[in-house]
C-alpha cells in the first residue's frame, strides 16, 4: 500500500471509530492485506495527519489507549450547542475520591475515608466504577480483604491524557518538622494574649482586604 493510500485509510478509520485506536488495532486493519504497512509507516502517516490538522477545528491526539480525532477546545462553545443536555458535573465528594484513587493508588475505601475525614458513599464508588474511571486492582491483605482501587486507561482517555505522568502534580506537603519552631506550644498563660494578638492582627488584615476588594 502506498503511503498516501495508507494515510487515507488511517484518517477515515480514526474518524469513523467511536474511540481511540491503538497501534495494534490499526495494524489489524491491514492484516488481510498482501503488503501490510509497518508500525513505522503507520506512525509516519499519523504524524503527517496530525500536521494537516494545524489550524483546523479538529486535532488528532494521542491519549492513553491510542489516537483519536477530537474537536479543539476553542471551538467548544459552538460545538457544545449541538447537544441539548449539559455535560454532567461531578460532585466534590466524587472528585476528591477520584483524586485520592488516582494519586494514591492502589488505595482502599477505608484509606480514602481516612484522608477525607468522612465516609465515602457506595454510590460514588459505583459511579466511578461504572464510568470505568477506576477499577478494583486487587485486595489488601488485612482483615476483610478490602478492595484496592486504581485508575484506568478510560480515565486517562476521558481527561485527555496519555499517562498518569501528565496529571497535575500534587501540592507539596509542608514538612512539619522543619516548621517546628513555629509550632512551639503557646503556654497556657500566653495563650489568651496570643489569640488576642492574632485577633488584632487578622482584624487589621481583614479590613485591609475588605477595602482592597
Amino acid at each position, binding site marked *: 500500500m502506498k503511503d498516501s493510500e495508507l494515510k487515507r485509510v488511517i484518517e477515515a478509520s480514526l474518524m469513523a471509530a467511536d474511540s481511540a485506536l491503538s497501534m495494534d488495532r490499526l495494524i489489524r486493519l491491514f492484516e488481510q492485506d498482501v503488503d501490510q504497512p509497518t508500525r513505522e509507516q503507520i506512525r509516519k502517516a499519523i504524524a503527517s495527519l496530525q500536521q494537516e490538522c494545524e489550524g483546523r477545528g479538529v486535532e488528532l491526539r494521542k491519549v492513553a489507549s491510542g489516537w483519536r480525532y477530537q474537536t479543539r477546545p476553542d471551538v467548544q462553545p459552538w460545538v457544545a450547542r449541538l447537544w441539548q443536555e449539559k455535560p454532567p458535573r461531578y460532585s466534590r465528594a466524587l472528585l*476528591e475520591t477520584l483524586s485520592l484513587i488516582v494519586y494514591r493508588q492502589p488505595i482502599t475505601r477505608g484509606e480514602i475515608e481516612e484522608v477525607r475525614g*468522612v465516609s465515602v458513599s457506595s454510590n460514588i464508588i459505583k459511579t466511578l466504577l461504572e464510568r470505568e474511571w477506576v477499577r478494583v486492582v486487587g485486595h489488601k491483605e488485612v482483615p476483610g480483604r478490602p478492595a484496592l482501587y486504581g485508575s484506568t486507561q478510560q480515565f486517562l482517555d476521558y481527561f485527555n491524557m496519555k499517562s498518569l505522568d501528565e496529571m497535575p502534580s500534587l*501540592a507539596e506537603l509542608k514538612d512539619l518538622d522543619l516548621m517546628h519552631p513555629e509550632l512551639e506550644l503557646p503556654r497556657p498563660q500566653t495563650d489568651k494574649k496570643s489569640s488576642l494578638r492574632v485577633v*488584632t492582627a487578622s482584624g487589621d488584615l481583614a479590613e485591609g482586604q475588605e477595602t482592597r*476588594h
Partner: protein
Amino acid sequence: MSKTNSPPPEHLQAELPFAVVKGEPITVPPEDLYIPPDALEIFLDAFEGPLDLLLYLIKRQNLDIVALPILQITQQYMEYIGLMKELRLELAAEYLVMAAMLAEIKSRMLLPQPAVEEDEKDPRSELIRRLQEYERFKQASEQIDELPRMHRDTFGVSIMQSEYPIERAQPDVDFRELMVAFQEVIQRAQMFASHHIQREGLSVRERMSGILGMLSIEDFVEFQKLFDVQEGRGAAIVTFLALLELLKTRAIELVQSKPFAPIYVKPAVKGPEEAHSNEG
C-alpha cells in the same frame, strides 16, 4: 467555573467572634456563623466533612494552618456542629468526632506543660497533618475538574461510514473441532465399524464426488478422460473403484454404442420427478 457548591469565598472576614478588636469588644456572634435551619442542607452539602469545614474556618480568617489557633477554631466549629446536630445527627457524626478531637487538643493545651518535655509533640500536629493532607487532595480534585474533559471541553469525532456492503466474517473452524464432531456422531450412531471406513478409503469417495461434479458440468464424459496417466496406478484404481461405487448406487451410467467404441460416462437417467427435485 466548575466548582460546585463551594463554600462562599472569603468576603466576610471583617467580623470576629467574641473578641476585642482595637479596643472595641465584640459581643454579637458574627452573622456568617449563624446558619438558618433551612440552610442546613446546603451547609451539609457545601462541606465535604469536618476537615473541609475546618479548612474553611481557617481560610475565612486568613490564617495559616500551621499556626492553627485552636481555641478560636474550636469555638467556631462547635457552633457549626451545634446547628447541625439539631437536625441531622446521623450526618453530623463525623463532625462530632472532630469536635471531640478539637476539645481534646484544647484541653491539653490549657494544661500547664512541664518545661523539660521539649520533645513532646504539639497536640495540634496530627490535626495539622491531616488538614494539610486533606487540602492537597482537595486541590488535586479541583485540578482534575479543570482538566480538559470529553463531552465538556472536547468532543470525539465519529463520522458516518459510506454505504458499502459489509462483508460478514465467517466463523473459524478448528480442524480438531471437526474431528471431534465426526468422532462423536460416529460413536453415537454405533453403526460404522472403523475398518469399514478405512477400507473404503476417503480417496474413493472424494473421487466419486469429483466424477459427479464433472458430470454436472459436462453431462457426458469419455471414460478414458477420467483417468490421468500422470496420477499413477494408485489413482487409476481409485477412480475405477469410484466409478464402480457410483454405478452401484445408480448415480451414473456407462454407455457404449458398439463393442470397442469409446465408453462414455453420464449421469443416471433422470427420473420423471426431476423437474421438482432440483435441490442444489
